[in-house]
């Protein structure tokens, strides 16, 4: 970041209002994202590209579901569980949703404590977030096992349109992969935070650059994005 030549080094100019300000930021020979480090800007751009990937998955699911003449399996029934003798629709997915939202909450607070340079609390909150994430993946593994035992395959299932299995495994599988990678990412950064790398500005193993507490926020961006994607999957795949 320090290598970037700034037209106006040291401080970003005051922001003009609305579109005029956007045009001014993007215009002429300068950095477009004035007060955002490259790490954060690149994470946002990666998340934008990931948005398109998940959009394509959800779109292909929509196309399959709209164009089939066979009735679509009712997700409310497919994902129901018997708990204590009661048949509760969609309960597993509801619990998974709450687990993921809780993890987003702890992550947001980790970012906050990170900027207060509260090393221990930041690391603990990040590890709690990772634990919630691992719980989520575990529940997803349970859900997959249950469905596979009931005979759901990418090419067919006992209840209706055969495309159900393909859409389900593709969408939730890709999301689960994201959660898993997020858990690894969280643990790696939490370790650095706990060790105090960002207080002593220790140089990174691969990059040989100093780390800053901003990496907690960048990790947080990824994690919140995973939660965000689940909001859409929950609405379109499970509730629709």
């Amino acid at each position, binding site marked *: *970041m*320090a290598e970037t030549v*700034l037209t106006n*080094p*040291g*401080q*970003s100019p*005051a*922001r003009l209002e*609305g579109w005029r*300000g*956007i045009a001014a*930021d993007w215009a002429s020979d300068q950095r*477009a*994202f*004035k*007060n955002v*480090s490259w790490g954060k*800007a690149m994470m*946002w*751009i990666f998340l*934008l590209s990931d*948005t*398109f990937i998940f*959009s394509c998955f959800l*779109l292909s699911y*929509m*196309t*399959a579901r*709209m*164009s*089939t*003449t066979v009735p679509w399996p009712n997700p*409310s029934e497919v994902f129901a569980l018997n708990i204590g003798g009661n048949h509760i629709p969609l309960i597993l997915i*509801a619990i998974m*949703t*709450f687990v993921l*939202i*809780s993890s*987003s*909450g702890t*992550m*947001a*607070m980790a*970012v*906050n404590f990170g*900027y*207060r340079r509260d090393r221990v609390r930041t690391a603990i909150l990040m590890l709690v977030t990772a634990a919630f994430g691992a719980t989520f993946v575990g529940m997803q593994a349970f859900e997959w096992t249950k469905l596979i035992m009931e005979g759901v395959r990418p090419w067919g299932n006992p209840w209706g349109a055969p495309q159900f299995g393909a859409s389900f495994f593709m969408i939730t599988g890709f999301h689960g992969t994201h959660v898993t990678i997020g858990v690894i990412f969280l643990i790696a950064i939490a370790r650095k935070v706990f060790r105090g790398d960002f207080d002593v500005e220790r140089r990174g193993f691969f990059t040989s650059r100093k780390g*800053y507490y*901003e990496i907690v*926020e960048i990790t947080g961006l990824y994690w*919140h994005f995973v*939660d*965000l994607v689940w*909001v*859409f999957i*929950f*609405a379109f795949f*499970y*509730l629709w």
Partner: protein
Amino acid sequence: MTNAAVHMEGQLHAPAHGAVATGAVHAKEQQHPIKLYLVVWGWLFVLSTCSYLVDYFGLHGYLRWSLILLFMMLKAGLIVAVFMHMAWERLALAYAILLPPVAVLVFVAIMVLESEYTHLLRVLFFATPS
């Protein structure tokens, strides 16, 4: 939210204020009161419960779909705006990230037309009379 307003003011008028400590690029830290996150967290729980109840009570038709979309957009908005701090970012970044996904809606429209056409053909030529 008053604190948020104060924060934005700070970004506007005092660019050198926090820059001394860590260098200019890393000066723009997102610092908001914990309470803001807890309130948003609470709202996300409430909205998730609401969208679950839509299914639990078995609402159907346009009521169901509009409620699902409403709760979904509210949750997504809260996460992006507050948890991901987009509400406090410079507009040049916010628009660069938030505008391109709008193109997805065009894709949705195209695929709705396409799948209705496919469905029509399947009904006309492949559906087994039963």
